[in-house]
């Protein structure tokens, strides 16, 4: 089996702790030798997933927890963000996420959406992304140290 270090962080699903998680990922990634650019990508991707937990996972509950797992491998960092909150239907949200287009804007400024960039950014900034939302939501994302190792197929893969 491939050898790796596992690091875990658990925080209350509150906005104030997302920055703390960011410090964690930047420490681990810089220790691993990721470039400044790649560390910034990791910070954004992790924050997007964590922001979703804070914003969406526990909408009908008073509080909840966010669990963050890091798999530190020789050639890559795996980041797993998970919650025990509400799941979502990936097919349903698929058409309200993604980049904006100029035509969308021209149609009606007032209807331009203000969200839906989170999952899209995660996918754009990481090399591989898997989402599992059977029970709560788990976002598993991978970034390679050497960018040439990246898979050609870098679409979000929904496992349901």
């Amino acid at each position, binding site marked *: 089996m491939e050898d790796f270090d596992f690091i875990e962080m658990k925080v209350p699903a509150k*906005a*104030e702790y*997302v*920055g*703390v998680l*960011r*410090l964690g990922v930047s420490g681990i990634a810089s220790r691993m030798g990721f470039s400044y*650019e790649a560390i*910034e990508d990791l*910070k*954004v991707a992790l*924050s*997007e997933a*964590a*922001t979703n937990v*804070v*914003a969406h996972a526990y909408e009908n509950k008073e509080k909840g927890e966010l669990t963050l797992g890091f798999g530190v491998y020789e050639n890559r960092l795996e980041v797993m963000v998970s919650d025990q909150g509400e799941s979502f239907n990936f097919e349903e949200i698929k058409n309200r996420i993604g*980049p*904006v*287009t*100029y035509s969308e*804007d021209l149609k009606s*400024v*007032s209807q*331009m*959406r*203000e*969200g839906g*960039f*989170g999952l*899209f*950014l995660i996918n*754009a*900034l990481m090399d591989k992304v898997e989402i599992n939302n059977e029970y709560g939501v788990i976002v598993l994302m991978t970034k390679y140290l050497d960018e040439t190792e990246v898979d050609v197929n870098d679409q979000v893969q929904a496992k349901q």
Partner: protein
Amino acid sequence: MNLTIDVVEEKDYCVVKLHGEIDVYTAPKLKKEILPLTEQKGNKVKIDLEHINYLDSTGLGVFISAYKSTKENDGELKLIHVRDRVLRLFKVTGLHEIMAVDEKDRGE
């Protein structure tokens, strides 16, 4: 991990200088400061991002709502001194095609 917001208001324009990080924790405060400025009829709002060292989709969301608000109130919104990393997020999301995002404008 924090955000400081300094607003310089002139007769028909204002400059909002931001320092720090824009994320899910600081974005609500930013929105509360910026939106009233965009609601003043014909106001030109410049947001200076020179000292923003972190921004994610929560920040993009605030700028989109500010943009919409200026449009509705015949005003203008301009993001100035946008750094490479931050600019990249505007490009990836396509927002730089819609909003005025200026990386070089260092003057008024």
